């Protein structure tokens, strides 16, 4: 089980003292927070990509490249990479490069973005959001998985004899999560490729995400990547802690009330009840987070949103200390103990090397079966009936690719 944090990188005024960090201060704070994540024993740092104020992280691989140099074990990810408006060629190259720089400590989460005007700013049409996500990702996969690509699609200029450079580290692309709040099409896409599905989870009640994740799990099995409970599920969460829960509530309330997105809307109490937000003692955070497993099944990655709504850097670092010392060790122990042996751990570069090797082996068996079926058919039409059942011998492992 992997634990980490994800940030949208908002520049928000601290409502308790009316100060606003500069872009430079916020960018530096994000880099400090990422390093702190490793220091307190977290596994993953995931960075958003935005092209509009009040968010600063427009260039994730620049920031993640810096974090890669400053850390040793931390897995670097995104939340999310805009698969709709970015050129898939550029995504393929940027993240393969980051893989080499970070010695494989890289994966990505694909998303469609949350801001309408970003589409036209990048020459795209928001009404084509899903088709863009589908086609761009299909191309991205090929650019990583095949050395030379001939390609033609609806949204991008064609490619003939193109090789994305550098090639993925060890010939294995970064693991990919697909994030979606409401589109079953994206859950279907994640299942088709045997990729991970990440439920943001922060907005909307859990029942909504429960349906989406169950659907993804069923389709993952349908496409032959394993059992439903072996699918790769990631969840978001949002916490604020203090030793005494009432202190946590009092301290967090002004930030909650003025937060971007949900500020000036529901009360802290309503939002806590309706979403995974937990404001209280570390033990309350542990208890609440353990319920996620009951709702969604054994899952592979838990990311927390910790650094938004104008919370000062000092507070965020204190929160990360608590998360790393008082919360995650218990969660890790409990969730790892509960997870059955056949359910995969959180994906890493090493586990992807093994998974891709198993996938090619299965495909080789399948190809051999197809060939023996051709041979059997030839033999049958030649008058012999002896080998007509060999093709059924290895009919499993339809890996969908």
């Amino acid at each position: 089980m992997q634990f980490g944090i994800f940030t949208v990188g908002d520049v928000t005024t601290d409502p308790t003292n009316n100060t606003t960090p500069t872009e430079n201060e916020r960018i530096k704070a994000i880099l400090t927070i990422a390093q702190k994540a490793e220091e307190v024993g977290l596994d993953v740092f995931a960075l958003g990509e935005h092209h509009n104020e009040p968010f600063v992280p427009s260039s994730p691989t620049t920031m993640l490249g810096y974090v890669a140099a400053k850390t040793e074990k931390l897995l670097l990810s995104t939340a999310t990479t805009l698969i709709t408006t970015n050129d898939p060629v550029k995504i393929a190259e940027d993240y393969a490069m980051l893989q080499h720089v970070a010695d494989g400590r890289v994966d990505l989460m694909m998303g469609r973005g949350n801001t309408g005007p970003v589409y036209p700013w990048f020459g795209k049409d928001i009404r084509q959001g899903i088709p863009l996500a589908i086609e761009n990702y299909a191309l991205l996969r090929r650019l990583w998985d095949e050395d030379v690509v001939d390609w033609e699609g609806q949204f991008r200029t064609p490619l003939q004899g193109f090789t994305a450079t550098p090639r993925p580290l060890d010939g294995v692309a970064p693991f990919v999560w697909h994030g979606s709040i409401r589109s079953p099409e994206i859950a279907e896409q994640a299942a088709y490729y045997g990729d991970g599905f990440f439920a943001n989870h922060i907005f909307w009640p859990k029942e909504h995400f429960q349906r989406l994740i169950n659907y993804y799990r069923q389709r993952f099995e349908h496409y032959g990547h394993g059992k439903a409970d072996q699918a790769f599920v990631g969840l978001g969460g949002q916490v604020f802690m203090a030793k005494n829960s009432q202190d946590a509530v009092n301290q967090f309330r002004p930030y909650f009330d003025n937060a971007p997105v949900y500020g000036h809307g529901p009360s802290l109490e309503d939002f806590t009840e309706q979403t995974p937000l937990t404001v209280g003692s570390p033990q309350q955070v542990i208890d609440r987070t353990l319920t996620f497993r009951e709702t969604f099944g054994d899952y592979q990655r838990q990311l927390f949103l910790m650094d938004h709504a104008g919370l000062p850097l000092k507070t965020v670092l204190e929160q990360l200390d608590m998360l790393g010392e008082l919360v995650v060790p218990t969660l890790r122990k409990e969730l790892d103990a509960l997870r059955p042996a056949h359910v995969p751990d959180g994906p890493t570069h090493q586990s992807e090397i093994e998974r891709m090797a198993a996938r090619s082996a299965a495909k080789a068996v399948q190809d051999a079966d197809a060939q023996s079926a051709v041979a059997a058919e030839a033999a049958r039409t030649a008058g012999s009936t002896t080998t007509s059942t060999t093709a059924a011998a290895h009919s499993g492992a339809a890996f969908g690719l």
Partner: protein
Amino acid sequence: MTDTSRKQLVAVSAGLSQPSSTRLLTDRLSDATVSDLTGRGVEVDLRTIDLRDLAQDITNNLVTGFASTKLQDAIDAVANADGLIAVTPIFTASYSGLFKSFFDVIDNTALTGLPTLIAATGGTPRHSLALDHAVRPLFSYLRAPVMPTSVFAAAEDWGNGSTEDGIAALPDRIHRAAGELAGAMEHSTRSARVIDPYALEGFSPVGGYGAQ
């Protein structure tokens, strides 16, 4: 969910005061529709939703993008109905903000094909055309067939029951509108439908172009 042989009628009232003349009109229209359906031998369940009770949930939905359990329950009731009675007070020459906000947070395909009776209340009859220039287009956009008769009740309508001057009185208009809605509901199968939001017809996870 519900007994599929029974028709589901949902009435939405955007009245704000208590007691409310908008709610009063809603109840008169509901009663008339139920009794018309009963007269046709059709069994019907009526649910009346006062948007006033959901005002905060609706505002929160506008801000956060998701509905509370209570609001979702109301939205589901409307989306799965066989007939809708939608009644708003006329504020500043149009439907009330609360009325509009409720329909704003419902998915814009959820009301497709829903037989709808629109009605409104106002201080004077001079606001009556708001039904046709504001409320009717709203439901047309949502592809909900709106009954030809819409009912406007000005304050004075509650006191004038006579038809001596040849003008149909409020109860007459209520009965005509209710009859139209009952007729449309009688054949509706909307409440018996099972909608699978995960039925991805024609969707390919690799795209439709020759990209794969």
